[in-house]
């Protein structure tokens, strides 16, 4: 049969339309129903961890759960933005790890109350990381592992320059200057000069907080401007490494000898040890002022359940099984692939890897000097603060004036979230 051009176009147009309709109507994501074995299908999201083996491990845990078919999604890229957007739709995850949840996510009813999952185990979770996941007495995510950030320093470089490991902010500024040469910078605080990664840590080191326990601005104090103003000195004296190919979270700049000191995560410790052996030490961010104290930030990804999940009960059961009951998996996840502190105190204290050397010191810093970002520190406050810090460090802006503006913004944010109670 011969086919005219018109007939051919008509047929192909019809086929395309039929195909589009068929795929639209028949698309099955497996989200609404059960799988072939009659089990509910739940989707679990993780952000992409850098450590090899982690993805296979979490898939193994998911396969071992026998009350649901858990499908793990390993998501690279801007994970926080992806989950925030997905939670607005029905196609989001049932269970997901979250660096929060944020107060707006809790107040917006996007996550499920998980208080009843902890029951008697609650006291075994590190209170420093459980607190930011608790709002109005309810727990909104189960902490998975604890992470912290530390000041790594190269012993040999400090010895050669006759510099002691810095215990005060002034000593850190002085050391960074002395350690700076034509090819090596004294300190790496990230390619932006520090505002992004340091956050509230310098304020904690000055004896202040971002938001007080009774919900007020915690840095409306002259000490805040004094401390943040000192960070400008590091930049102005050209002691900071800027523009490294990889940022603060990767220890490459430190291990490649581009910097003598670097602020990075606990997760970088095995890599640093492998590259430098014992030629390094770790310190908390050094104290500043008479009321100051050393400080390290602590944070924890937590497992949360989406309020839009169609299988909330089984999703909660899965979270309880994995992050409360299966302590063997928790220990495996924290210590076998990367390097994190288990969120359970009992696991953290018995882990041999966390008892000695730099790791042992890091655990002690978390216990003695750890500060978690308060739940009331909203994204808008954080952006205003980081912008101000950037202008102080790089632009030499007046710290007093900049901080006054951040205090105003933070007060407005605290009023806004209080209104929603």
């Amino acid at each position, binding site marked *: 049969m011969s086919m005219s051009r018109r007939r051919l176009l008509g047929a192909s147009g019809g086929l395309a339309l039929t195909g589009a309709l068929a795929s639209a109507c028949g698309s099955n994501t497996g989200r609404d129903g059960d799988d072939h074995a009659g089990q509910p299908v739940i989707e679990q999201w993780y952000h992409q961890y850098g450590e090899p083996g982690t993805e296979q491990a979490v898939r193994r845990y998911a396969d071992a759960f026998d009350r649901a078919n858990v499908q793990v999604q390993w998501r690279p890229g801007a994970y926080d933005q992806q989950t925030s957007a997905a939670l607005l739709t029905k196609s989001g995850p049932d269970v997901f790890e979250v660096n929060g949840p944020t107060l707006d996510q809790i107040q917006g009813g996007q996550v499920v109350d998980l208080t009843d999952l902890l029951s008697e185990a609650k006291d075994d979770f590190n209170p420093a990381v459980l607190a930011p996941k608790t709002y109005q007495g309810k727990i909104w995510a189960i902490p998975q592992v604890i992470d912290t950030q530390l000041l790594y320093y190269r012993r040999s470089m400090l010895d050669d320059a006759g510099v002691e490991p810095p215990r005060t902010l002034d000593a850190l500024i002085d050391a960074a200057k002395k350690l700076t040469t034509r090819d090596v910078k004294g300190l790496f605080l990230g390619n932006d000069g520090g505002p992004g990664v340091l956050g509230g840590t310098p304020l904690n080191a000055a004896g202040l907080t971002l938001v007080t326990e009774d919900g007020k601005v915690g840095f409306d104090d002259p000490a805040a401007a004094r401390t943040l103003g000192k960070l400008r000195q590091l930049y102005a004296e050209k002691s900071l490494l800027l523009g490294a190919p990889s940022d603060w979270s990767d220890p490459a700049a430190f291990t490649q000898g581009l910097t003598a000191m670097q602020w990075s995560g606990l997760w970088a410790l095995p890599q640093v040890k492998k590259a430098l052996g014992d030629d390094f030490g770790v310190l908390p961010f050094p104290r500043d002022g008479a009321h100051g104290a050393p400080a390290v930030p602590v944070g924890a990804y937590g497992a949360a359940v989406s309020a839009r999940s169609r299988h909330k009960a089984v999703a909660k059961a899965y979270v309880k099984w994995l992050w409360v009951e299966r302590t063997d998996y928790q220990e495996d996840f924290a210590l076998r692939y990367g390097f994190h502190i288990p969120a359970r105190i009992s696991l953290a204290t018995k882990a041999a890897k966390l008892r000695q050397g730099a790791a042992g010191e890091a655990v002690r810093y978390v216990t003695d000097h750890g500060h978690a970002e308060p739940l009331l520190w909203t994204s808008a406050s954080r952006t205003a603060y980081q912008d101000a810090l950037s202008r102080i460090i*790089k632009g030499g802006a007046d710290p007093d004036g900049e901080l006054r503006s951040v205090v105003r913004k933070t007060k407005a944010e605290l009023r806004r979230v209080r209104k929603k109670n």
Partner: protein
Amino acid sequence: MRGPLTTELTRRLLGPQNRHLWFWIFVGPFVLGLTLFTYVPLAWSVYLSFFDAHNTVSPTDFVGLDNYTAMLGDDAFTGSLVTFLVFTAFIVPATYVLSLALALMVNRLRWAQAFFRSVFFLPVACSYVVAALIWKMSIFNGVRFGLANTVLDWFGADQIAWLSTTDPPWYWLVIVTVRLWLQAGFYMVLFLAGLQRISPRLYEAAAVDGARPGWQVFRHITFPQLRATSVAVVLLLVINAFQAFDEFYNLLSDSRGYPPYARPPLVYLYYTALGQGQNLGLGSAGAVILALIIAVVTVVQARWFGLGRKED
């Protein structure tokens, strides 16, 4: 055997008198897609801009113009508009001059014209993200083995942290050069098309009148004849500059955010509406304001340049 109904349907579908039906069969799916994925979200965004929409796209708390006043009173947003103006001031003339120069050069080539046209056009096919990462990580990184710093080192100059230094603001050099590399080839092709439309008789007449080849001919013949192309190029450049996102985001952001300098409006709105803040009401108000600004600037610019006016 065909029944009367089938015959009638066939006649209606295949007959030359039913061009409208076929038009809609082929265009309809795209109109449907455009409506579903562009116009409905646009209308929804305008709707959201009048509500307190934190972490929701179905808000209930009507706030009137509060989001608009908040956005217009926000230093970070107004600062982002200033960033756009600075970026436009750099990129529009730079791209215009470079692409016109390339077009003139390629147009005069007696041999290998197609080769050079392809070479200059090729970067257009490169992704903004990829180009931005190459610029950031290998050419303009701030350490001693970055390409730009290696060249500086040959002359004994100090290393420069290209993207992290605000005084002087070297980051503009990185941002402008990456976009220039990516888009100059595209505008070169537009100018080439414009150049090839100019009648050779005009050049012959100019030669007869004694015009010197080179600058005089360019000024009095070529440039005025390229007026329509120039207007279109400048309009496209300004609109593209307003929509700048990819290279800024990939050059300057990190996992913890974005520095307050060189933050164009779309990057700011991305962080407001789609970042962890998820303030979709405020972000929508900003998007509406930005859309209005682009529309007004485009219309004013088009009228100023006389876009669509008949050639004299």
